[in-house]
Each structure stands twice: as structure tokens, then as C-alpha cells.
């Protein structure tokens, strides 16, 4: 056959070699395309293949009180997450984790839904795993190769329920928040980040929130963690948030929480008249912010949203109540400012228990009447008839103008995410808008004694009393005085020093013998204040007690007031019985510690009388002229 001829073989060999060359050029070209032209892409893919990013949450800033005590800090907690994986292996991992972490089937289903939604992100299984569970997982590392255990700072609140409202609580950021401009910075805010939801935690969120870090782990094809990946600058440690120092007194908060009646709702606000900073801000019922750390359980959440007691509602800054007699000082301030009344002047009509204006009879809280009183006595005895006439002298229009100027229809501007402004008519058209009629001059009688369309927050009344305790000006209350935001505009009452001294003297007499709150007077300090008994929708119909107010200030004897405290107890009855002791005790507690004097359990005159003989420091009151006991039913 023709194979024999060498030339034929040579020709065929050439064809075979050409074919061989073509095949190898094809192979070489295919590898060139992958390894040279597309190498960069594939290097990235190989990296993504084996590197998994794990976010390291940053610890939130520590919150201190005015004395440097920690109110909120962080303790090491542990989070258990699963690396991204196909659904089946996530399901299998969850089933293996279930006995360790105590996951019920419903929880597992929820987690699977989340895993489907956030494909490609690590799945947080337990944000706050128990130490025992972590120990089990670490011991059996080999059996849980796809499980990531993160040290994750866990928020801890020292004050518990005492500071719940003012500090607020934290929780995982939700979709709506992510869309807000405050949370636009994606390097700090992304899914799974824990943010402040209310209170100081929310107000100063941008300070307290740190910058999360990242670390990379190497994984194999089955998602098993091989080890930390150290060969990159992309490993960034978390930066903790800023520490902030509040003006709050943590122990005062705790003290107030302790003495506030368990079964009643209300609020207590303590301000430092020196600069308007907040010493305590308490709302009852309260909640413990620690319960929200790592997610609150549904039953507890439902409890906190109880429509009757509304524990999440911060009554100190959101609740609005008729200020009642505590507002008489505002009437007095306006009248003195306008010069329509002199401090030593007595009204034309002495108090006989009623006052007739127009065709209507207006009653004083004391049926027997107070007789002819001047301003000091009117404040001391809270005489309604006096203030009816004072109101008439001011006139409705001027009362509305002045109260509006002072700011009774504005919010205080405290550094909390939410605050309600007081309700006060800014002009006569208010009645037309709200009630549908033109106000008669008689409206001023109600307003002058703190009733009518006048509702104020406890914080607002506290700010007003700060103005009285100072020189008539009141800076906006601040919880974080050194905070970044400029303080809101303060108040200015425009009062002469004499007028202020008169008002303070009137307040002093309230806790003097014969005053409505004498039993709350203190051994070491001058306590001035004003009781108030505010009507509420239920009490008007006789279904419940009135709201009890006491707005007071206290300081060393003969000195300037160093603390202003306002207490409101809803349905507490008379202000002197329930609210005044809270204010007196809170002021005493704060002042004793400020002046380094041990706190005793017998604080007010009431305790002294109940536990022993009449103390020497308290003058015995003159027997009341009418023979009826002082105290109860004081308005």
C-alpha cells in the first residue's frame, strides 16, 4: 500500500502535526482568555468564593450621670450567626442548633424566611445567646462548622426601670428607619444594626452609635470556616460610639422610682435652676430598658402597650394635664408684670367661698372662704376667689397674650426625640375653633386658676418654676448639657426682683405652718412649692380622683433654691397628700447628697410626727381659726 512511500508519510505527518498545532493553539488560547484576559475577574470570584464578611457591631457609647456613675454601658455578649448558604443547609444547621439555642419550629421558620430575604448576608440566629450555649457550641466546633460566634457588645442599663423613659430603649433598625435621612450613612447603618428607638438613646443616636468593623473568615466549599483571613487591610476593628455625660442624677432617679406609688401613674421632673439641666425625669409606670436588649418578647411588648396604663408613654414630656393651682403662680406673675395688682393689695371682694361674675356663681375650693387675703395669703391658701378677681383685672386678651409670650403653648425644647407642647389658647379664636363659640370674659376666671383649656406637661410646669426660682428667666431644660445641638430658646418672665421675691415668699408659706403642704416641710432645707388638684375627664364626672400636682423648689435655709421638682400623680387626689411628699423627699434626697449629708428615712415632717415627738425644727402650727384640720382637700 501507499503507506510505504516516505514522501507520502511525510505529507501525512505534516497534516497530523498541523492538526495537532491547531488543537494546542485552541487550548492555549482558551487558557489565555481565562488566565490573562479575565484573570482579574476570576481572582475576585475566587476571593468571594472563600472569604465571608462578618460585621463586627460597634459598642454604643457609655452614658454617665452627672456624678460620673454609669447609667448605660456594654458587656460582652455573644451572637450566633450562620454564614450564607443554600436554604437546605441553613435548615439543617438550624435543626442542629435548635436544642442548643432552644429554637422552636416557629422560630426556625421565621429565621428561614429571613435567610431567604437577606440572601448573601450572614443570618443572625441569636443576638444574645446564653453563655452556656456558647460553651456548648465552642466545645463542639467541629459539629457546627458554619456557625459564627461573634463577641457582640450587649447594652446594659444600671438604672433599670428608674431610667427607662429618659434613656429609652434600643432595637434593630427597621426598614422605615433605614429610609430616613438620619440613617443614610451605610457604613454605620445597615440591616441588623441596633439603634436607639426612644429617649436619650434615640436623641443622641448619632453620637452613641459607633462604626461597625468587619472581619473576614475563610470558608471552604461547604461553608465550613477554615480560619480568620489575615491577609487583607479590609479587616477593620469596630469603633465604639462616643461616651456622653448627662446631667441626670442616677441615684435620684432610682430614689424617685422607689418612692413613687406603685399603683399610680404620673411623672416627676427635677431641674437644676442654675442652668435648667435635668436632674431627674421619671414617668410611671416605667419599663426596664434591659428588657429590649436582644429583642423583647411579644407577651412583654403587649404588656407594655397596655392601653390603660401605657407604660411606654413618657408622661413627663408627653402627658398633658390641667395644671390647676400650680398655674396660679403664672397668673400672679402676669398680673405683677402688668402691674394690675400690688403684692400687699387685697381684692375688692373678700373670699366668702363663692364669687359671682355675670350671672354665674364661681366657687372657691374652700366653702367657708378665706376672707380678705393679699397675694401672699392667696398663694398660701390657694384662694380661688382672689385669683378670679386677679384674672379679671388682667383681662382675657392680655392673659392669653402674656401666657403665650411666656410659652405655655410651646414645647420646652428638651433634648428628647418627642415632647408635646402645652395646650393654651393663643387668642380668643381658639374657642371658636375648638368649642365653636366666642369666649366670654368669664373664661378668664377659669384660666386664672389653672383650669379651662389649659393643659401642661410636668416638664413645662417645672420650667416655669425654674423661672421663679431664678431671676424670671428659665433656660431650656437639657439632659445632656454639653450635647452638640444648640440649646432651645429659654423663657423670660419679665418680672422685677420684688415680684419674684413675693412669689417665692408665697410659695414658702405653702410649706409653712398653716400652709397647704406643711407636713411635707423638711428639716434641713427651705421647701417652697404649690399644690394643685387638677380635674380630669374622669374626676369631673366623679368617677375617679383628681390629678395631684406639687411644684416645688428647695435649697439651703435662707439661700437660693438649688433644685426644682414637679410631681404629678394621676388620680392621686389632693396635691398635698400624694404629690408634695414625693417632691419634698426627692428634693431632700438630692440636696443631702449634694451637700454630703447622709440620707435618713425620716425626711418630711410627716414621718417625724408619725415616728416620734414633734421635732424642734418645725414650729407648731397655730390652731386653724375655723377648727377644721388643715391638709386634706386642699386645692
Amino acid at each position, binding site marked *: *500500500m*501507499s*503507506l*510505504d512511500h*516516505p514522501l*507520502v*508519510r*511525510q505529507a*501525512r*505527518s505534516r*497534516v*497530523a*502535526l498541523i492538526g*495537532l*498545532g491547531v*488543537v*494546542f493553539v*485552541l*487550548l*492555549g488560547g*482558551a*487558557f*489565555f*482568555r*481565562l*488566565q*490573562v484576559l*479575565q*484573570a482579574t*475577574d*476570576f*481572582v475576585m*470570584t*475566587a*476571593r468571594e*468564593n*472563600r472569604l465571608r464578611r462578618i460585621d463586627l457591631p460597634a459598642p454604643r457609647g457609655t452614658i454617665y450621670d452627672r456624678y460620673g456613675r454609669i447609667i448605660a454601658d456594654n458587656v460582652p455578649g455573644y451572637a450566633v450567626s450562620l454564614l450564607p448558604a*443554600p436554604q437546605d443547609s441553613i435548615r439543617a444547621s438550624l435543626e442542629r442548633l435548635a436544642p442548643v439555642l432552644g429554637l422552636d419550629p416557629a422560630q426556625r421558620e421565621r429565621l428561614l424566611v429571613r435567610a431567604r430575604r437577606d440572601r448573601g448576608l450572614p443570618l443572625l440566629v441569636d443576638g444574645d445567646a446564653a453563655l452556656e450555649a456558647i460553651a456548648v457550641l465552642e466545645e463542639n466546633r467541629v459539629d457546627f462548622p458554619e456557625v459564627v460566634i461573634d463577641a457582640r457588645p450587649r447594652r446594659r442599663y444600671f438604672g433599670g426601670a428608674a431610667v427607662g423613659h429618659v434613656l429609652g430603649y434600643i432595637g434593630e433598625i427597621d426598614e422605615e428607619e433605614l429610609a430616613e435621612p438620619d440613617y443614610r450613612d451605610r457604613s454605620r447603618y445597615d440591616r441588623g444594626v441596633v439603634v436607639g428607638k426612644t429617649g436619650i438613646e434615640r436623641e443622641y443616636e448619632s453620637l452613641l452609635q459607633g462604626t461597625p468593623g468587619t472581619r473576614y473568615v*475563610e*470558608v*471552604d*466549599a*461547604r461553608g*465550613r470556616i*477554615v480560619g480568620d483571613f489575615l491577609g487583607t487591610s479590609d479587616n477593620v476593628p469596630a469603633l465604639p460610639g462616643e461616651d456622653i455625660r448627662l446631667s441626670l442624677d442616677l441615684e435620684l432617679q432610682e430614689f424617685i422610682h422607689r418612692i413613687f406609688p406603685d399603683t399610680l401613674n404620673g411623672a416627676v421632673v427635677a431641674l437644676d435652676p442654675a442652668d435648667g439641666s435635668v436632674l431627674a425625669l421619671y414617668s410611671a409606670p416605667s419599663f426596664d430598658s434591659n428588657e429590649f436588649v436582644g429583642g423583647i418578647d411579644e407577651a412583654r411588648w403587649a404588656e407594655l402597650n397596655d392601653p390603660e396604663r401605657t407604660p411606654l408613654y413618657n408622661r413627663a414630656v408627653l402627658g398633658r394635664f390641667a395644671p390647676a393651682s400650680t398655674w396660679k403662680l403664672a397668673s400672679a406673675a402676669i398680673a405683677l408684670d402688668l402691674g394690675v395688682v400690688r403684692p400687699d393689695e387685697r381684692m375688692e371682694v373678700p373670699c366668702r367661698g363663692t364669687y359671682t361674675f355675670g350671672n354665674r356663681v364661681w366657687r372657691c375650693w374652700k366653702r367657708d372662704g378665706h376672707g380678705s387675703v393679699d397675694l401672699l395669703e392667696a398663694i398660701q391658701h390657694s384662694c380661688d376667689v382672689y385669683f378670679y378677681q386677679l384674672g379679671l383685672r388682667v383681662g382675657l386678651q392680655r392673659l392669653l397674650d402674656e401666657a403665650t409670650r411666656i410659652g405655655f403653648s410651646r414645647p420646652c425644647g428638651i433634648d428628647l426625640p418627642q415632647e408635646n407642647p402645652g395646650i393654651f389658647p393663643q387668642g380668643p379664636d381658639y374657642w371658636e375653633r375648638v368649642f365653636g363659640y366666642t369666649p366670654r370674659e368669664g373664661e378668664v376666671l377659669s384660666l386664672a386658676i389653672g383650669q379651662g383649656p389649659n393643659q401642661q406637661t410636668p416638664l413645662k410646669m417645672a420650667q416655669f418654676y425654674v423661672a421663679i426660682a431664678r431671676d424670671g428667666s428659665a433656660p431650656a431644660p437639657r439632659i445632656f448639657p454639653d450635647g452638640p445641638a444648640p440649646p432651645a430658646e429659654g423663657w423670660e418672665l419679665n418680672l422685677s426682683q420684688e415680684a419674684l421675691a413675693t412669689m417665692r415668699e408665697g410659695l414658702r408659706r405653702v410649706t409653712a405652718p398653716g400652709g397647704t403642704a406643711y407636713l411635707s416641710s423638711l428639716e434641713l432645707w427651705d421647701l417652697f412649692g404649690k399644690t394643685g388638684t387638677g380635674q380630669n375627664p374622669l374626676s369631673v364626672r366623679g368617677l375617679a380622683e383628681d390629678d395631684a400636682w406639687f411644684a416645688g423648689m428647695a435649697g439651703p435655709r435662707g439661700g437660693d433654691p438649688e433644685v426644682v421638682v414637679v410631681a404629678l400623680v394621676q388620680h392621686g387626689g389632693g396635691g398635698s397628700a400624694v404629690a408634695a411628699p414625693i417632691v419634698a423627699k426627692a428634693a431632700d434626697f438630692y440636696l443631702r447628697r449634694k451637700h454630703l449629708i447622709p440620707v435618713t428615712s425620716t425626711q418630711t415632717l410627716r414621718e417625724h410626727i408619725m415616728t416620734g415627738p414633734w421635732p424642734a425644727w418645725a414650729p407648731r402650727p397655730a390652731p386653724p381659726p375655723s377648727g377644721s384640720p388643715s391638709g386634706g382637700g386642699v386645692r
Partner: protein
Amino acid sequence: MGAAARAATEWLPLGRGRAVRRLLRVWVVDPPLVLLVLGLTLFGVAMIYSAGQTNVPEPAVVGAWRRQLVWLVLALVAFTAVSRIPLRWVEWGAVPAYAVGLVLLVATLVVGTGAGTAAGTRSWIVLGPLRFQPAEAAKLGTILMLARYLARRDMAPATLRELVVPGVLVALPLGLVLLQPDLGTAQAFVGILFAALFWAGTPLFLLALLASPLPALILAFDNRIWGVYIVLVLGALYLWRYRLFFSESIAVVVANFAAGTVSRPLWDSLASYQQNRILVFLDPQVDPRGAGYHLIQSMVAVGSGGLWGKGFLEGTQKRYDFLPEQHTDFIFSVVGEELGYLGVLAALLFFGLLLARLVRLAERVADPFAGLILLGIFGAWMVHIFVNIGMTVGLVPVTGIPLPFVSYGGSFLLMSWVAVGLAVRAAHDDERSLG
């Protein structure tokens, strides 16, 4: 020159070198070919060792390189033995070898088991501690049978009719291998057939006609494309003076129509994993976590190796278990990942030189039987090398086919070295030095 002087030159490098070269020539017969193969085998052992260096070591893979070395020793023994067999004896034994191969393939279908990378098929026969793939032996038998048949003809095949017998000789073992099913090895038989026919002098155009039903098989998935293809085939037949080869032309057309017709049922008869492999070849992303996973991970491994590679033992795709079958079918992905494009080029150069050497040797020998053996081996290895290396980068569909001398696999290494022994014998049978 005195005795003293002669004793001194004994120690000269020149004299010793001459002795070593002589010994080498006597033992390995064809040093260029054998050294290339030995180099590739040792390179393979190194890569198998690297393939065992994974994060979670699999015992079977970790020690594979040692077992491969043991097999290499056996293979060298087998090579030495086979290369001593005179070619006439080989020619005489071609028919029995072919017959034994067929019997073994039939036996495999009855008692065969799956193993290792192809656990789902029946490709292996287990005899006590021994396990081997009869298809490897059948390949050699087929090469010999085909060479014997074609060498005994006086003329080169010039008509399709003359291709029937060689076609059937190959189709028998091929069909049996397909029944296992082992699509990968089956392709090697096609390579053998075409290489041997080419070397026997069959016109390339005839070979193209013979191959024409294969494209039809695939193109028939779209009737319009298939129609255009049929028209092209008919046009080619017309230009090829169809009147002279009327019956052949009819056969080609019928075969093309038949291929197009059976392609659908044939596709449906494929196992779903086989279908998937073909589908993901067209687009790996259709099933990135399933059938396309291996291909994608292999391409990522090779691509991320870049020009210089990640360094020997340093491949991350391999280390963290992303690479499938990294010590057998996908060993070349490890080469690409760890040694980079330069390493790939070096390996391709070795394989290229090896195949070219077979062609050169075939060109040199006058004995048609010897030349056909060399080209048969060339065809088989060509398919193995092209398909195995090509599949790691998506050039051809993924089929289970090992890379000669480099992939781990004892019986495959042994039979490959037996083929080397046959090749060097075929190339040098006429030389006196072989005695």
C-alpha cells in the same frame, strides 16, 4: 593508550555519559518519547500530591501520590516487558487482544461496578484486591486490531464502503463502553478510528463525510439549522462527483437524516446528569449550584491562577474544596490555579511534544502496522488530552475522562505506559539494537 590512561578516562564525564546513554537507549528504546512521558508522570505525581493538600484532607486523596508512584514502578516494569515483544508477535496477538477486550467489556456490563469518580456507572471489574477498567485494555486491543486490518489492505480506503469494516471494529467496543455508560472513554475510540483511517490514507473529505452525521445529531435540535446543514452536505456531495459514489452519497444523506431524526429520542435517552453536562457546557450559569458548579469552580480556579499562578500547593479553590475531582479528572485545574498560564503552557508543550513525537516516529517507520499503532495511540491520547484539558476551561462539555500520565488512576497509568511500550517497540522494531 596505556591501561592507566584508560582507567582514568573511565571516570571522565564523557565516557560515563556515553555509557548511560547506551544503557538508556537499550532500556527505554526511544529516550525522547519515554523521557517526556516519565517527566509528565512525575509532574502528575507532584500535582496529585498538591491535590491532596486540602483543608479537610480526604484520606483517599492525601495518599494518592504514593500509590501513583507504586503504580509507576509497575508501569515501568510493564513498559519494559511490552517493549521487548517483537512486533510480529504483537501483530499475531492483535485479534486475541481485541477479542479479550470485547469479552471483558461484555463482562463489565454484567459484573462491573462503579468506582471513585464514576460511582454511578459500571466501568470497573474487581478481582480481589485488583480493580481495573476493561475499557482501557479494549482501547489497546482496538488500536492493534484496527492497525492489523488496515495494514493488510493493499490500497488506502477510497470509498465509504471500505470504511464499514474499520467502523464496525471500533463501533463494537465503543457501543459496549457507551452502555456502561462511559461517554468520556467512548470518545477515545472515535479518536482512534479517525487517526488510524487518516494514517491509512483515507482522504480527509471522506473522513469529513463519515463525521458529518455527528454535527447533524446536534444541529437537529433546531429544524431550520438542520435544514441548512443538510443542504450544505448535499452541496458538498454534488461537488464531490456524487455520480461516481452514488451509493455512498445516498448513505451519507440517509445517515444525516437518521442522525437528525434520532437526536431527540437519543437526547431523551441520556441520563439527566449527561443532559445537564451538555446544557451547562453551553452556559454554565444555567445551573451554577448544580451541574454547572464543577465547570464554574474549575474556570474560577484556572482563571484566578493568572499568569504566574498561586504557587505550588497554594491553590485556594483546591484547598477549600471548591474544585471537584481535583486529583483525577480536574487535575489540570490545579495546574492552572497553582502554576498559572506559564505552567499551563509548559504542560501543553510537554503534551504537544509527546504527540508530535508519536507522529514523527510514525513518519519514520516503513512498516504500516507499526505506523498505524503509533497513530492509533496518538488518536486516543489526543482525545484524552484535548477533552480533559478543554473541559477545565469550558472548551468542551464535561465528561469523565482522565488526563494521560497526570490524572490519578493506577490501571489507567499502567495501560498508558503499556501503550508507550507498544509505541517504542513499533517505532524501533526494525533496529538491531533491540535484539
